[in-house]
């Protein structure tokens, strides 16, 4: 710490270390990234846990998220009120889930939330259409999109209720070896 004023107390840092997949150094790095997003908004002293939120516009301008077609969903899923504005806790949470160390189950849970556009806890055909459209920059024809959605539902929907529950989704993810390496943002 030295003569520089500490951002966090020792207990806070330890709590963050215990609850995320980050080390002390990474937490500090993430904090400075967060602080850089809105220097006039975020204080350099978090020992009293101030209630600060960085607005979605600034969060989504991060290079890590800027070109991600799902950036809005990511911010919504991880923000407290689902509006995309993020506290430091939300911010750390987001990168902790997206880190290399996070287990498959946790990642799958949040990926499910991200792809569940209408927040109804099921991925239905409409959600799938949104996903496919975002994935392909909307350059597939409506027919192709609906065909793809139909195939996806066909493959992944184990109980044939016409939509994917979290269990269905996790089952798909379990079979996809690349998921862990692609659902990962390096910090």
């Amino acid at each position: 710490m030295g003569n520089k004023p500490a951002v966090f107390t020792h207990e806070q840092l330890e709590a963050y270390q215990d609850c995320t997949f980050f080390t002390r150094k990474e937490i500090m790095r993430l904090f400075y990234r967060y602080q850089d997003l809105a220097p006039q908004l975020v204080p350099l002293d978090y020992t009293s846990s101030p209630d600060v939120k960085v607005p979605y516009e600034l969060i989504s301008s991060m290079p890590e998220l800027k070109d991600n077609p799902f950036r809005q969903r990511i911010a919504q899923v991880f923000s407290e009120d689902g509006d995309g504005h993020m506290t430091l806790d939300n911010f750390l949470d987001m990168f902790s889930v997206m880190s290399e160390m996070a287990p498959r189950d946790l990642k799958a849970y949040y990926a499910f939330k991200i792809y569940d556009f209408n927040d109804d806890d099921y991925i239905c055909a409409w959600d799938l259409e949104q996903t496919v459209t975002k994935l392909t920059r909307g350059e597939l024809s409506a027919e192709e999109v609906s065909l793809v959605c139909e195939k996806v539902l066909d493959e992944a929907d184990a109980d044939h209720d016409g939509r994917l529950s979290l269990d269905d989704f996790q089952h798909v993810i379990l079979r996809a070896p690349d998921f862990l390496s692609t659902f990962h943002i390096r910090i």
Partner: protein
Amino acid sequence: MAQPPAFVFNVPETPEDQGQDPSPYDESEVHDSFHQLIQEQSLRAAEEGLELRVLPQREPGPETLGASELLDMSFCFVGSGHQALLGPEGVPDYSTATLRILASMPSRTIGRSRGAILSQYYNRTVRLRRRGSRPPLGGVGRSARPSLRLYDLELDPTAFQEEEKRTLLVKELQGLTVTQRDHMLRGMPLSLAEKRSLREESWTQSGKQRGPQGRRGLLPCCSRLRYACGLALHSLGLALLSALQALTPWRYALKQIGGQFGSSVLSYFLFLKTLLAFNALLLLPLLAFIVGVQAAFPPAPAGSVPTFTGLELLTGGGRFSHSVMYYGYYSNTTLNQLCGPPLDGSQCTPEAGGLPYNMPLAYLFTMGMSFFITCITLVYSMSRSFGESYRVGSTSGVHAITVFCSWDYKVTQKWPSRLQQDNIRTQLKELLAEWQLQQGPRSVWGRLRQVAILGFVWLLCLGTTLGCTLAVYAFSELMIKNPVSAEREWELLALPLVVCLLNLGAPYLYRGLAALERHDSPILEVYVAICRCVTRWGRWAFLGQGLCLPGAPPSASTPLVLCRNLILKMVILGILCYHWLGRRVGALKGQCWENFVGQELYRLMVMDFVFTLLDTLFGELVWRFISEKQRKKRGKPEFDIARNVLELIYGQTLTWLGVLFSPLLPAMQIMKLLVLFYVKKTSLMANCRAPRRPWLASHMSTVFVSLLCFPSFLGAAVFLCYAIWQVRPSSICGPFRTLDTMYEAGKVWVRHLEKAGPRVSWLPWIHRYLVENTFPIYLVSALLLAVIYLNIQVVKGQRKVICLLKEQISNEGEDKIFLINKLHSVYEGKERSRVGRAQEAEVPPTLPADERDAR
């Protein structure tokens, strides 16, 4: 905190809707989000003219869909095209009572409410704690254990239940050890604030609990001490973890590469990093037990040592021959005043004052041990990578995996992200096209033609390989016939030059040939090619598995080129090995042939490095200039992952082959890899673009490690074993100069031990019965085979169980839909009779039944 108003995100608030139309199952979140959704949808429909497909029979709009809960429930049913199962009217006809029940079904609450998550994790924690053989919490825990089955239909007491579950979870968390608790906490899908408060509670309460217990207990001090120790260990673990993290090099460089080129190119650099680790692992024991010790006790110089001229850096001869670089420098005596390393430390018998360090023995043991360690690490990393990338039943669901798992979240720049979107689009289109193709029959003629072309190209490739091999063989024979004099040392570079030229030229030829055989269906081609591969060379089976997966169609030419290149490289190395051990040993009578072989490998390695650099410079840079000038639209060349990886594997094979004759070769390799990382990265950033075709990164890294293990490491191990067991070491240099084979050193030592006395008699016994006797080897291999067989059977059984479970799940789904329909019809009947009765009693109502019910 005060936010600038410009930043405030515009959340569509609809308070009046909320007020007049309360959701039947107090989930305001869902309600909110749903309204937001409808607004979004209507906006989009207005802007882009998109039709809302969801409810074709109704006009979409917030005001008509006042009963939002109905739609929320029915949204998916209708949208998915499964409405046939639910009756022709669709779902909006469901009465609110039905919907209320549907909404509180356990499967709907999983993953949504915090309470469900808490209780799920509570159950997991209980399981974990039980496994730890601690006493159960007692009656309270069992009877009050909330399970998803017990989830009440009435959602009013949710708050209470959540609180209760939370305290239970906290209690259970206290029962765990610190590491288990952290592990559990980190894996919970809760927000960070929630996790922190859970952690806080479980810490403080455990502190409070421990207090009174300690006072009551006999040893309060002890338990407090244990607690403090646990805390200290915990912080120590955290500190160690951060120290380890700090050691990971190239964090930023890797992030940059991943961000700009995606996972596929990143896999090349990660493989390079893995190779670095392997070399470091190999080098460390060698440095500690052979090179370091020998450098500390240099032998008497034999004859004059030539001066350093600079050419040595290329040829590896001259001054270098008289240094720790090569086998010949090491002495065959016992170095005194130093005890042996831990490897043979137990045999450190005091002898004539000093503690002996038997150099031949140390050489043999250290080589053996470091190879063994490398082998274990390699096999472990291979099995882990296989476990990650191949799971039981992972052969279906291409579309789903493409849609859900193909977006690379690492990508951070505009251009690559557009490229990725294009890739995914192409891939989806290909998948659809292939699916449509499967529907229609394929012409036999077309298939025949494809196979004919393929056969032709394969013949050509194999012919080229054969030609290259013969050329290398003839050239090596020529080198033996005309021995190079000491003055013209540079002539020694001729053979490595030829080999490297062939290695460089042939891949381009193969790539050209691969362009010949590009057809309409890349998948079929890959299949046919790999099947040929598999039948001809049984050991490529894993390669075929890795590339034949119907996951994403990998670039058509990539696996073929990979396969052919590999065959070429391995055949050439095989010929060279034969040349060294079969011909050179005979030709170099009276000289130190080990040094010569070491030098040859050094030269090969240096030449390979130089050629890689040249290839990077000319192949990528010049190609970029040409393509930029000639064809503007093609742009930069693609980064050829397969070829680059093969070059790395080739270099690593050279290192493994040469390590016995030149213990410092891994150090050379490390330097080479370090330079290569920066050169390749710079060249990649400046000259290349990401591969256009999709590429299964994790399958590919599995294939890379497997290739490193099977032809490469196994080949090197066979070569070294042959050299150690069968070939007579030269009689004028090296640690084994007086022996018949290198392996004799061990035998001599065992005989020596037998004489030493009864205290260590078990060692000769082990040697006699376990090493020299062949029976244990048979036994071990039989056991291994049995284990493999059992594993295969287990996997088979798991597959069967998975099939059965799938069937069961689909049956359950049908049951569910059936029950929902039944429920619906029951409620409908009830409703109708009630309405009928009401009609009889009063005037006919003006409102539809639904709306009245909602009031």
